[in-house]
């Protein structure tokens, strides 16, 4: 069905709407009000709630018309409908009245109050008088974990929750129970929701059944939140967020619509991982700087502290979780030759390959991923490392079902009809992984192999491709057999590649997703060969070859690609930094560590770094192993407390805005760097922004000034087009909604003086409720429109339903160069690499009678894999006990049964000295498809252990097991306690809020 514009008449007014829409979407796209519940822009229509009734007329002479549900009615040329017709509007009011027979009148204590879609729709229909005399039905609520609250009595049975959780996100542990007016949405019994996307229930539910438990615990109304547009700092997808704050505490994260990226949904790491901003681990004080004034730290204090470093050389370690500005500034301050991105040698090789791929292939947006009809994921469990992307992959797989339904004349928005007619049809997904993942259930085939063999598989795929082009009478099986003699692949792997090849050849929009977390530069290089092969050959003969797949490489952190753009041939690895410190003792004054926890270093290596580093300067927001050892420690702003840019996996540069001003002396990293730039630089005083923009304190006051300065001073600063900030003439956008209430009463215990609102010149947002209309904003701090208080108000700001925002800026992309590959250290040496692969493959045998050689892979975890999010107390409470998955062969070898608690001893291979051993108590799962030389689990191993290990498994002794379990339990209890303590502290804090915070200004004068 091709899209075109058709004319329809709504209440006798002509409108141009898209022919592929349903009537409800068309009506909402025209910014007309029509209430609805079960329809959702991303999930389509099911016609359950009957709320969007309108009258449809056959022609202009038809006065009677018939009632239709707008959401299930396709738009046709010349159609005539009426929203205002009395029959339709009375029926819509009755629908609300019917829902209200059971909906409790608990709005005053409901977390949804003030942003409730049900409230909005009730008012929209005009229902205000209650006729129902009877009692209301009641339900028991469930414990759904630490993140989501449950209050079933409020349910109006719109089915959106189950349609999101089960149908859209593929969740299994939730569903619909019961019938008649006792329909229950929940789990089969109490327990934490297992889906990575459970938080979306809060936004999907039109009323207060599902609530953000963390937000509710320290609750405030939506209209009292101060919000700003932000970017998720927890993975490389770069989902757009709206972060809400009150009294200096971050309260919650809501989805911020972006048609190309996250759409309407976030993952739970993005939504709840913000807890680190409030956590106890935050660094709030400067260390190693003498403060002269009793009131505040001044730039003079800093200048004094750094004075004796003038013209001294420093090494610097940047970070993929720090902003683009901070990393860039750091690199300029110390010089490219002294800059390290925080990567070890392996990670540098991967980064170099990644840079090469990014330079050649533009990665697809999530919207483009959803349009794919073939997905191949290599070596990255995106369900845990980039969960929002995994949700998009799930949608891509529905391509086949939608295509089948289209043949029956069913539009893709007819959700229930598509699912009943083609529910089981899935487009092909192939998984080449070393752990099982949460996409396994929708994968056509999944192959588990040790990380080292991925490259081999892709090499075979490339070879197949070459053969198929060269040979007119190509026989797949024969070709595979030939290739099998050249590369050591099991039959199972061969069959996998065979089917993969066939599916790839049939795909119209194929997609490959790879990742950086398994640290395999070789794999990325082979993918590059594959794409190159398809590209070159398709130029010659377009018909026989598969379409060129799109490629998305998922790096580890929010700003990984940002830091990739800063790498060049001089960039150091961590080991090179350590070597330089060791061997050029007198050259370097020390190391500046920017928001970097150096997770890949063992404790002893950290100690070693400290020992050989004369001066350790650390800038970070939360306590790390390094921050406690630092000579000078500067507390920096977390993502919600500052401005800056992150670059997502596509290379898209996205701005995050300050939500609230942090308590001094906390400030953005780039501000600290700007303060110390003059003293540290090799170029002397000229270097600092001081001389360029000498306005107040002689420092960059805003991000705009910083960018201006960068642009003038450094040729290698990516020329980013930034918001035009002209605070003097243009009115800013408000961070607070119009209804921010009781502005004087908020602090009446201290003063009834209404705080002055200050305009921070950093951005186009004011710390106030005064501002320009929201629809003019490109990045909206929150959404609200008259009559639309809930997140559903987004339809008032889209050009059309599911379309771009009214003022959507064009996405800006950063250029990534391949310069880093010029350094021979980071090039892949072909023979070496392949020998590494084959040695791993050759170890596919039993080493001795009582131990085996295996590689261990730690599974990624949505809550705990990302360092910042893992600080969140609620996530700590979700830590699972140890679980190890082993092959059936290994289980047989050690006589282990499924689910048994075991002691697992892992040690480095014989011959490597010193021999290191690691023993863990873990429950064992047997995975049939797992090769004997691979196992995976959810616990980390000491980084000093090599990937290939000797393993020995015995049943755990009762004492050891009970010790482990009680330690595990203690951990959970400690997390629970710290969560409670934190909550008490925050609530106590609310009682005496400094006026400065309310005004939001850093400028106290």
């Amino acid at each position: 069905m091709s899209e075109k514009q058709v004319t329809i008449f709504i209440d006798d007014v002509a409108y141009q709407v898209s022919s592929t829409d349903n009537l409800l979407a068309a009506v909402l796209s025209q910014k007309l009000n029509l209430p609805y519940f079960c329809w959702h822009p991303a999930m389509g229509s099911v016609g359950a709630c009957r709320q969007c009734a309108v009258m449809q007329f056959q022609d202009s002479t038809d006065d009677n018309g018939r009632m239709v549900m707008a959401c299930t009615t396709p738009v046709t040329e010349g159609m005539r409908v009426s929203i205002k017709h009395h029959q339709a509007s009375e029926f819509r009011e009755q629908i609300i009245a019917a829902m209200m027979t059971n909906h409790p009148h608990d709005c005053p204590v409901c977390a949804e109050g003030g942003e409730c879609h049900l409230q909005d729709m009730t008012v929209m229909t005009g229902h205000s008088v209650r006729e129902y005399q009877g009692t209301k039905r009641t339900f028991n609520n469930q414990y759904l974990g630490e993140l989501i609250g449950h209050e079933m009595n409020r349910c109006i049975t719109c089915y959106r929750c189950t349609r999101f959780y089960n149908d859209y996100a593929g969740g299994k542990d939730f569903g619909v129970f019961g019938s008649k007016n006792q329909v229950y949405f929940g789990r089969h019994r109490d327990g934490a929701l297992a889906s990575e996307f459970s938080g979306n229930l809060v936004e999907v539910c039109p009323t207060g059944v599902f609530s953000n438990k963390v937000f509710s615990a320290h609750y405030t109304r939506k209209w009292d939140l101060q919000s700003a547009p932000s970017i998720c700092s927890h993975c490389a997808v770069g989902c757009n967020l709206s972060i809400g704050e009150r009294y200096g505490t971050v309260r919650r994260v809501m989805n911020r619509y972006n048609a190309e990226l996250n759409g309407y949904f976030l993952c739970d790491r993005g939504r709840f991982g913000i807890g680190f901003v409030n956590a106890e681990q935050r660094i709030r004080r400067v260390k190693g700087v003498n403060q002269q004034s009793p009131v505040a730290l001044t730039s003079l204090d800093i200048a004094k502290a750094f004075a004796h470093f003038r013209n001294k050389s420093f090494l610097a370690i940047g970070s993929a979780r720090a902003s683009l500005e901070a990393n860039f500034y750091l690199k300029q301050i110390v010089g490219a030759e002294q800059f390290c991105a925080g990567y070890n040698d392996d990670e540098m090789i991967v980064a170099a390959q990644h840079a090469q791929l990014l330079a050649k292939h533009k990665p697809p947006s999530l919207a483009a991923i959803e349009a794919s009809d073939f997905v191949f994921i290599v070596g990255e469990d995106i369900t845990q490392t980039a969960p929002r992307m995994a949700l998009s992959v799930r949608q891509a797989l529905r391509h086949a079902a939608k295509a089948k339904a289209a043949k029956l004349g069913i539009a893709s928005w007819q959700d229930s009809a598509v699912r009943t007619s083609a529910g089981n049809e899935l487009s092909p997904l192939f998984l080449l992984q070393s752990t099982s993942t949460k996409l396994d259930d929708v994968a056509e085939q999944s192959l588990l192999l040790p990380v080292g063999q991925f490259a081999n598989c892709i090499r075979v795929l490339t070879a197949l491709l070459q053969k198929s082009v060269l040979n007119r009478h190509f026989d797949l099986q024969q070709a595979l057999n030939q290739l099998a003699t050249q590369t050591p692949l099991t039959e199972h792997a061969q069959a996998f590649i065979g089917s993969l090849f066939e599916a790839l050849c049939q795909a119209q929009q194929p997609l490959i997703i790879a990742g950086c977390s398994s640290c395999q530069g070789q794999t990325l290089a082979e993918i590059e060969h594959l794409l190159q092969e398809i590209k070159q050959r398709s130029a010659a003969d377009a018909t026989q070859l598969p379409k060129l797949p799109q490629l998305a490489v998922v790096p580890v952190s929010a700003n990984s690609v940002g830091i990739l753009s800063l790498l060049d041939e001089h960039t150091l690895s961590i080991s090179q930094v350590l070597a330089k410190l060791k061997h050029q003792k007198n050259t370097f004054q020390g190391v500046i560590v920017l928001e970097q926890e150096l997770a890949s270093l063992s404790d002893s290596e950290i100690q070693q770094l400290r020992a050989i580093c004369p001066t350790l300067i650390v800038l970070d927001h939360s306590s790390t192993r390094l921050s406690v050892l630092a000579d000078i420690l500067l507390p920096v702003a977390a993502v919600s407390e500052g401005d800056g840019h992150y670059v997502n996996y596509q290379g898209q540069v996205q701005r995050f805005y300050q939500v609230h001003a942090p308590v001094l002396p906390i400030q953005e990293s780039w501000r600290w760097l700007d303060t110390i730039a003059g003293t540290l630089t090799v170029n002397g005083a000229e270097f600092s922004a001081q001389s360029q923009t000498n306005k107040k304190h002689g420092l960059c006051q805003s991000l705009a000034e910083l960018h201006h300065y960068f642009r003038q001073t450094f040729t290698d600063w990516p020329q980013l087009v930034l918001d035009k900030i002209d605070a003097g003439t243009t009115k800013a956008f408000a961070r607070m909604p119009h209804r921010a209430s009781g502005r004087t009463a908020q602090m009446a215990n201290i003063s009834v003086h209404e705080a002055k609102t200050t305009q921070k010149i950093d951005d186009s947002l004011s710390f106030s409720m005064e501002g320009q209309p929201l629809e003019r904003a490109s990045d909206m701090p929150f959404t609200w429109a008259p009559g639309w208080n809930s997140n559903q108000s987004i339809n008032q700001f889209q050009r059309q339903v599911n379309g771009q925002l009214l003022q959507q800026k064009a996405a800006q992309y950063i250029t990534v160069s391949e310069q880093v590959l010029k350094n021979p250290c980071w090039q892949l040496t072909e023979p070496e690499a392949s020998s590494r692969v084959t040695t791993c493959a050759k170890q596919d045998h039993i080493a001795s009678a009582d131990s085996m050689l295996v590689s261990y892979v730690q599974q990624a975890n949505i809550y705990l894999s990302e360092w910042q999010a893992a600080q969140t107390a609620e996530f700590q409470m979700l830590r699972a006990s140890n679980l190890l998955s082993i092959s059936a062969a290994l289980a047989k070898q050690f006589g282990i049964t499924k689910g048994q608690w075991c002691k697992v001893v892992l040690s480095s291979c014989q011959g490597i000295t010193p021999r290191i051993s690691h023993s863990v108590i873990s429950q064992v799962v047997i995975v049939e498809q797992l090769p004997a030389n691979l196992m995976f689990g959810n616990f980390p191993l000491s980084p000093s252990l090599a990937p290939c290990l000797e393993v020995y498994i015995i049943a755990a002794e009762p004492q050891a097991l009970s010790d482990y379990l009680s330690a595990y339990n203690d951990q959970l209890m400690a997390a629970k306690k710290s969560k409670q303590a934190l909550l008490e502290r925050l609530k106590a804090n609310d009682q005496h809020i400094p006026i400065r915070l309310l005004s939001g200004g850093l400028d106290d004068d």
Partner: protein
Amino acid sequence: MTVAKFNTVITPLTQWVNLQQPLDFTAYCQVGGYQAAKIALTEYQAHEVLEIVKNSGLKGRGGAGFPTGMKWSFVPMYAPEDKNAPDNKYLIANADEMEPGTFKDRLLLEGAPHQLVEAMIIAAYTIGANKAYIFLRGEYHLAAKRLQQAIDEAYQHQWLGDNIQGSQFSLNLYLHCSAGRYICGEETALINALEGKRANPRAKPPFPQVSGLFGKPTIVNNVETLCNLPHILKNGIDWFQGLAPNSDAGTKIYGACGRVKKPGLWELPMGVTLREVLYQHAGGMQAGLAFRGLLPGGASTDFLVAEHLDTPMDYDSIAKVGSRLGTGGLIVLDDKNCPVAMVLNLMRFFAQESCGYCTPCRDGTPWAVEVLARIEQGQGRIQDLDTLSKLCDFMWIGKTHCALAPGAVEPLRSALKYFHDDFLQHIEHGCCHYNPSAIAKRRQVAQSSVQAVTTSSNMTGSANE
């Protein structure tokens, strides 16, 4: 076409029914069983059978009265080697007889199970289905036993399974016993239940004929509808049409329940009058009772009253007087039973059986129950009658996801029309006049409340002082 010789059978459906001991395979064959299936498989192409069924004028006996042949013709047919052909099509016998006051299918299922099996072979052959299900009401234990036995026998004698009687046609027939929901009688809810999903009706389109069970073309037919097929094939169209005096063809199993002299089931020509069924076959009202009204075709049809008794019981005639033929099972109301209580009872059933999918049905039916219950208990208010008629409109056709709620509304809205005085009496007198104990109790309460008022006013009086 072999047109059968003139046939004198006038009760084809029930002629072999034996509730004590249904005919087993051999006995069924002896009376001419499986001959029709043989005719279909050996003498006709599938499209020829379809043509016969179309021309016979057979309409669905489940309640809606949709022409069976036309329903079948929507099933896509494919040449044997067609690559686009689905790997399966399905036939389902809807034996989920849960309509209150209706028990006609039970007679056929328990009394002549082989007749249904034979009919399903013919139907499956016509639409090209190789798998068929009987979706049986869960409580029909005896029918389940007898059907399973008939199916087993049919397999034994190569009337089911691969290559039936050497015809190249294969059919596997399965018996599925429902877990028991009224809504499973709705064909798409039935399909969902059969797939192991929640028994919610599906959105249409797609219609089951195109995309039904497991997304494949599917026909769902009522048991009684299917049981006509062998006879049509054996005796011909003219015979079938000759059975009925009016425009509709064939016979219909009519039933009656309530306080009539002889409740029961009778196979009669399609289109006999209500009066004939009620007085000639059911024997009229029991002694001392007078006729008040009846639901002509199960609980989800509108009341008809004395003035309608000469209406012929066919689809169009009953529709003309404002009701539906439905299942043809009369529920008769006498003058000693309260119509409000009857409607309340039915509404309770529908509220209980609502699947909970769409708002008008899920929340509207319990609301109607709440109002009716109050009226019935003498707690009603005059504005409740407005609420009830509003609710009737609220749950009417086109406003709900399926036909359950409009069906639930039918007895209520017609009762409001024909028994308006009874509703008014309940409200005005605060009790039910059909219930002597309620009247007595009401008097008692009234007296004691008068006393209470007097005492309490005395007390307040003294307090004020």
